[in-house]
């Protein structure tokens, strides 16, 4: 089983400590969610785990190999990353955008039948077939987010790291995306997310890592992760965990 991790990982940006000595070991085949207040270092940690940021000290590893020393193309074949505010620079068609996900596989001869088949599968999984020939500028924010998820799936990666993938999706499409992440995890993909919606994190995840002030405050299965005590220390709020009809529900009462 594939393991994504980091050892004693620290990141300082302009003398400010963003992450301090974070050590994690994340298994594939599960949905692992990183939560924490704004500025806790969630995105920084995720970009380090994606091999896109060189930590100040320590390292991120994939199956024991330092991500920083992996050939970028090789890394990109195994690990897909979905940034928080994805940029789409040109008015391309949906399919053209999704095809970019095949970049690490396409050789000098251009896309093969296998590449096209992978794009078709990704489009089916993310249910974006209607947007195949639509110019991405004309899609709504939620539709675009789904096309970008399809882009990440087109590489059929072992690992999918997504920064706030549910932001901007309406409830129905949030559920669809959550189901898709679950399904990916069950098929063996390692899914690592950052989320702000704590109730969603509880319902969706196999494991929740609470990040606060650049360090790991909690790392547990959902049932034990977001206790009132943890929420008070991480977010500075009073909250209760209740069971709603749709699953666990975090009710924030007020500031602690």
């Amino acid at each position, binding site marked *: 089983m594939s393991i994504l991790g980091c050892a004693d990982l620290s990141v300082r940006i302009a003398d400010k400590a963003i992450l301090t000595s974070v050590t994690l070991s994340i298994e594939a085949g599960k949905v692992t969610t990183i939560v924490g207040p704004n500025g806790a270092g969630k995105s920084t940690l995720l*970009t380090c785990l*994606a091999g*896109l940021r060189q930590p100040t000290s320590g390292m991120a590893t994939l199956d024991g190999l330092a991500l920083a020393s992996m*050939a*970028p*193309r*090789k*890394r*990109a*074949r195994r690990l*897909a*990353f979905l*940034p928080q505010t*994805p*940029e*789409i*620079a*040109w*008015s*391309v*068609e949906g399919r*053209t*955008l999704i095809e*970019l*996900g095949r*970049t*690490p596989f*396409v050789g000098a001869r251009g896309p093969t039948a296998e590449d096209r088949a992978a794009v078709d599968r990704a489009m089916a999984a993310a249910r974006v077939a209607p947007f195949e020939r639509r110019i991405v500028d004309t899609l709504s924010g939620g539709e675009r987010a789904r096309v970008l998820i399809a*882009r990440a799936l087109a*590489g059929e990666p072992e690992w999918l790291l997504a920064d706030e993938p549910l932001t901007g999706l309406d409830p129905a499409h949030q559920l669809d995306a959550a189901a898709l992440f679950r399904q990916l995890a069950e098929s063996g993909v390692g899914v690592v997310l950052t989320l702000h919606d704590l109730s969603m994190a509880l319902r969706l995840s196999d494991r929740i890592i609470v990040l606060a002030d650049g360090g790991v405050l909690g790392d547990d299965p959902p049932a034990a992760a977001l206790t009132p005590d943890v929420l008070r220390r991480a977010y500075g709020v009073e909250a209760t965990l209740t069971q709603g009809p749709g699953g666990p529900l975090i009710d924030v009462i007020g500031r602690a």
Partner: protein
Amino acid sequence: MRPINRPLLYAVLTAALVVLSSISLIAGKVWVPWDVWLTPDVDPRWAIVFELRLPRTILAIVVGAALGLSGAVLQGYTRNPLADPGVLGVSSMAALGAVLTLYYGVTAFAPWALPVAAISGALVGVAVLMLLSGSASSLVTFILAGAILNILSSAGVSLALSMAPNPWAVNEIVDWLMGSLADRSFEEVRMALPLVVIGCGLLLTTGRALDALTLGDVGARSLGVSMSATRWSLALGVALAAGASVAVTGVIGFVGLVTPHLLRPLVGARPGALLVPSILGGAVVVLAGDILVRLTPAANEVKLGVAMAALGAPFFLVLLLRLRRKIA
């Protein structure tokens, strides 16, 4: 607009190139009809075709291709439809390099100094752009960096002009600065062609990376694209292609801006798919412009660089107005 199929686009552009090349050989103050080609040794007008118009036509194609491709690559890299070697100050930095060699009169005994200086100037320009585009590059950063380079180089050129040792040097510099294909010979073709070919070769390797950059810098890196390799190819490629072009024709602006912009909708906006069409399109634009300035009735031929700027400025304005709506 729906992208049209690729072979059709290539066929249309190539056909336009062939037709314009033929016209370019025939047209001018002296019209040379086709039958001259049948009797090359007898008809004196053959010399006009072979000694003047043929190198001029080849240079128009070479320079147009270099500028069109440089524009397409710079726009793809900066994700900015307003980018081109002229707007970003690369051409004017090349011009500054060239002017310095003219000013010091080095070119008289070392003709290779001019292209070397032009390419070095262009390289400095690209390097400054790259430095500024390090981590957080926005459209505004690039345009401002270009403005700074343009101001810097025009100050340098003005200084050279004001300090010029004699009026002839001033004349030479001014004449050259305005950008023209008139009275060029095979010597210029031999000078520019190999450099432009190498530069374009480097630029064509960036296609896949430019496509990936559609998803931004982080997106491209997450797809395994090496940004440093891309930057090197781009910097050297633009410096060689645009620098060598400026070295033989002076500054001809807006080709690199207009060409990719017009072709973009036809290739479905994918930056990598825009590269080869921009080579052909740039050649078409410069050839057409050069034929027009030759046919413009005036005592002295209108300089191509001046004509292009006159046509390009309104185009830039329209582009800016349209973009403003998008940004705001």
